[in-house]
């Protein structure tokens, strides 16, 4: 194969070569079947990268719909570990079943507590992050960190009304809403933060995963966890959640 590296091939596909470079490359493509094959492979990967790497709002909306259908058509208690425990109680020894139930209740209780712990986060104010100060975020952080999520969400509403692009306010409002059980609103905020590519992008993905994990929607939780790079600050928590799933 002629002496063209992958970057050169990609630059050709990106239409980023100078006219004379392009002519030379196309001439070589005609002569060199190995280069033509390599260029075709790169073209296919590039197409997949263009399709799958950007945030896909349509997919996020479909995932939301599928989660709703999942709850409607599948029963977590039927056929699952808990369901099997119930069957044992009916058909097996009462004592043995009681032991099993105690074990599983404890097991799942611990899982839920571990998830709850993973969901604990303090609101860091804009000052601490070195961003522009905002008079509303200080009081919001005070309520948020005291566990007063309704008050925090109300103040963060105000902050977002005056500046809808404030990703910090949107992220913490998403977490506050999730803590308040307002799952739909929480996910809308967290998705917007994820799509916004801010510093909190992967934290938003983590909380989206956690919101699905607590509903025992493993597929959706893993989908979001997979979007978190291994070197993101939130990656250790993501790995912990992944283990719990």
């Amino acid at each position, binding site marked *: 194969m002629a002496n063209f590296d992958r970057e050169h091939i990609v630059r050709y596909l990106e239409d980023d070569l100078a006219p004379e470079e392009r002519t030379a490359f196309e001439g070589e493509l005609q002569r060199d079947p190995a280069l033509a094959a390599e260029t075709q492979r790169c073209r296919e990967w590039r197409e997949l*990268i263009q399709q799958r790497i950007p945030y896909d709002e349509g997919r996020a909306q479909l995932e939301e719909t599928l989660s709703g259908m999942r709850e409607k058509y599948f029963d977590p208690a039927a056929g699952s570990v808990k369901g099997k425990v119930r069957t044992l109680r009916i058909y097996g020894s009462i004592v043995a079943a009681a032991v099993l139930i105690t074990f599983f209740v404890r097991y799942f209780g611990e899982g839920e507590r571990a998830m709850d712990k993973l969901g604990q986060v303090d609101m860091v104010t804009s000052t601490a992050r070195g961003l522009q100060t905002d008079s509303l975020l200080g009081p919001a952080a005070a309520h948020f960190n005291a566990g007063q999520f309704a008050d925090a969400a109300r103040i963060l509403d105000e902050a977002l009304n005056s500046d809808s692009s404030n990703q910090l306010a949107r992220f913490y409002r998403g977490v506050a809403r999730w803590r308040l059980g307002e799952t739909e609103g929480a996910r809308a905020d967290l998705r917007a933060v994820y799509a916004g590519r801010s510093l909190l992008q992967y934290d938003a993905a983590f909380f989206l995963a956690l919101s699905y994990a607590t509903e025992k929607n493993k597929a959706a939780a893993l989908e979001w966890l997979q979007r978190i790079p291994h070197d993101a600050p939130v990656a250790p928590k993501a790995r912990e959640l992944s283990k719990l799933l």
Partner: protein
Amino acid sequence: MGPHEDQRYLVALVQNDVKLVDEIYRLFSPAIRRYILQNQGDEMDAADILQESLIDIYHQAKFRGLQLTCPLEPFLLLVARRKWINELKKRGHKPVTKLHDDVYDYGEDAGLLAEQLANQEEKARILARQFARLGEKCRQILQRCLSGRRQEDIAAELGVSYAYLRKKKSNCMATLIEYVEESRATANK
């Protein structure tokens, strides 16, 4: 020959048509559940497998213009069965069903479409894993540049020149292609 009338279900997935997605679940979830429960899985496994299968079908319909030449049910069942067999292998269980039996059970069209989908989605999974290996800067550049926004704006946001951004984008994409090719070569050894 045009697509099968069940193509409307694929359109429904792409357009997030809640009513038709509900119909997909109502009509086809019992068969998926039955298969998973009969093959070492439980209710939540069935829910996961159906959800993941529909997301894979969404990707193929949206990005590759998948045209159904058979009813949705055999195709969906084949996609789900392939997924479940792979999952069982990952868990260290021996699957009872053999894949080539499915093609005879469900028809060649469904078999061919399911095979194409499985290959494409496997490539997408490799891509996702290898994308995570890139440095933060490369990930940012690729995600932003592929979002459809003006590259001049992105260059300004990142504090780099437009020419640098274009060069770096090609460089990051070439690195990613390198990683995925390496990964596939290792897997094929």
